């Protein structure tokens, strides 16, 4: 099922979804060496975002978060793609400098239907997300 979304960062990637109920601050919230979420009390605390299609409402916190996304990429532990409910500048800039395909604003109620472990293909160039199973 292919769903229309807004294109934020070009590129295509497919992976397993990891869904966060909470906004994410990459600066301080995610270990740039391991890709493990370390923010206390976060819905993804202790989980690794490496290689996942990371699905979260929006970014938060310091603008240095954009740079941390690039570090994650260089360390090979960045998500393979990002879907936001609604994008804000920290994540937008981070996705572009780290070259992580990204979309936001999926049509209808599709965003809420993505669950952990389903395979999702994000096409940031065309602005679509396909839920495979």
């Amino acid at each position, binding site marked *: 099922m292919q769903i229309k979304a807004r294109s934020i960062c070009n590129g295509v990637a497919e992976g397993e979804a990891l869904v966060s109920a909470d906004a994410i601050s990459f600066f301080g919230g995610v270990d740039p060496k391991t890709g493990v979420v370390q923010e206390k009390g976060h819905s993804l605390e202790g989980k690794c975002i490496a290689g996942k299609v990371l699905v979260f409402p929006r970014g938060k916190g310091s603008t240095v978060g954009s*740079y941390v996304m690039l570090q994650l990429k260089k360390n090979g532990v960045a998500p393979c793609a990002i879907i936001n409910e609604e994008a804000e500048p920290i994540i937008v800039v981070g996705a572009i400098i780290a070259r992580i395909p990204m979309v936001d604003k999926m049509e209808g109620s599709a965003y809420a239907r993505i669950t952990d472990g389903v395979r999702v293909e994000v096409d940031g160039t065309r602005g679509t997300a396909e839920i495979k199973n």
Partner: protein
Amino acid sequence: MQLSSEQQSMLEGELGGAARQSMEILCALGRIYGARNMVPITSAQVAGVSYKTIGDAGLEYLQDIASAGARVRVPTFLNPAGMDREQWQALKVPPAFAKKQLEILAAFAKMGISSTCTCTPYLVGIRPKLGEHIAWSESSAISFANSVLGARTNREGGPSALAAAICGCTPNYGLHLDENRVANLRVLVDVELKGMSDYGAMGAYAGEAAKGKTPAFIGVKGATEDRLKSLGASMAAWGSTALYFMKGITPEWNVAQGAEEITFGAQELRAMREKMGGDGKPDIIAIGCPHASLSEIEEVAEKVQGKKLATKLWVCTARKTKEAADKAGFTRTIEQAGGNVVADTCMVVCPLEEMGITHAACNSGKAAKYLTNMFKRKVVYGDVEDIVCK
């Protein structure tokens, strides 16, 4: 989004990878904010300069993009760095920190960015005119440029301001557009504001009350440029306000029909000052947030002339302003009293904790906010004569 042919060629990579990535950032930001086109800018100010703020993650990015051939197309300068480039050893900045800080400044220099590190570019010759579009990213400079000068800038982040500098344009939305430069909160000022710290307190109050609205002040008497600088900085720190108007003072005055109205009187001033300031013996008296003008440095010099201060005193300023203070003899007077005139940096972005400082006195509403967070205790708050001569 509509792009000029030059902007389109940047997006397609014809002007190199760094320009392409920068244009991609601007286009994506334009999309999320609903911009229809780009607007050319006359200057850019890039924040995220202190190693304390951006760390290794930021340093690596800046080195990457500088090596990829990024070069700025408009006059571009920097927010304060984490230390004075010339006096860092004398001021006891840890050498490991200094090494990283110098690497950051070198990466910026490679991109053609001026090494002017200040939150008051408008005091050192970078003074955009009414209606000029710019991309600035230090919150007090944004407020001053928008409000006091009538130039137009959104609240840029470090990377978006850098992208704008590299492309020479910024997405046309928000405060670049007439329809968004309208106040929707009237602030009736019903108290005499005596000094800089009263302006800082009013800024803190209005910033908190505004909650994202644009304030229009009515009834302020005796506002100087230094005082407006302090007011705007405080409003931005306490409430992220990027634009305000002041009747009879600011070049723009556009207030929405039926705007909410609040009063700032003696009671509000007293309550706010109590909220901002605490007691105790500070380790440092920090003046110059935003960076001190020459007349503010002169005021400090007059107050400390012939004295020996018991507490460390920093007057933070832009390098060009310091050079003027050196010539006028103010720096020497302050140094003879045991103080320092410090350039390129400030108390908010330098590693004070690493320098063993745990309590401060200041005359700035913005510094009061940040130093209270940093030290987990309220600063001593007052005008220069209160905090220096105590």
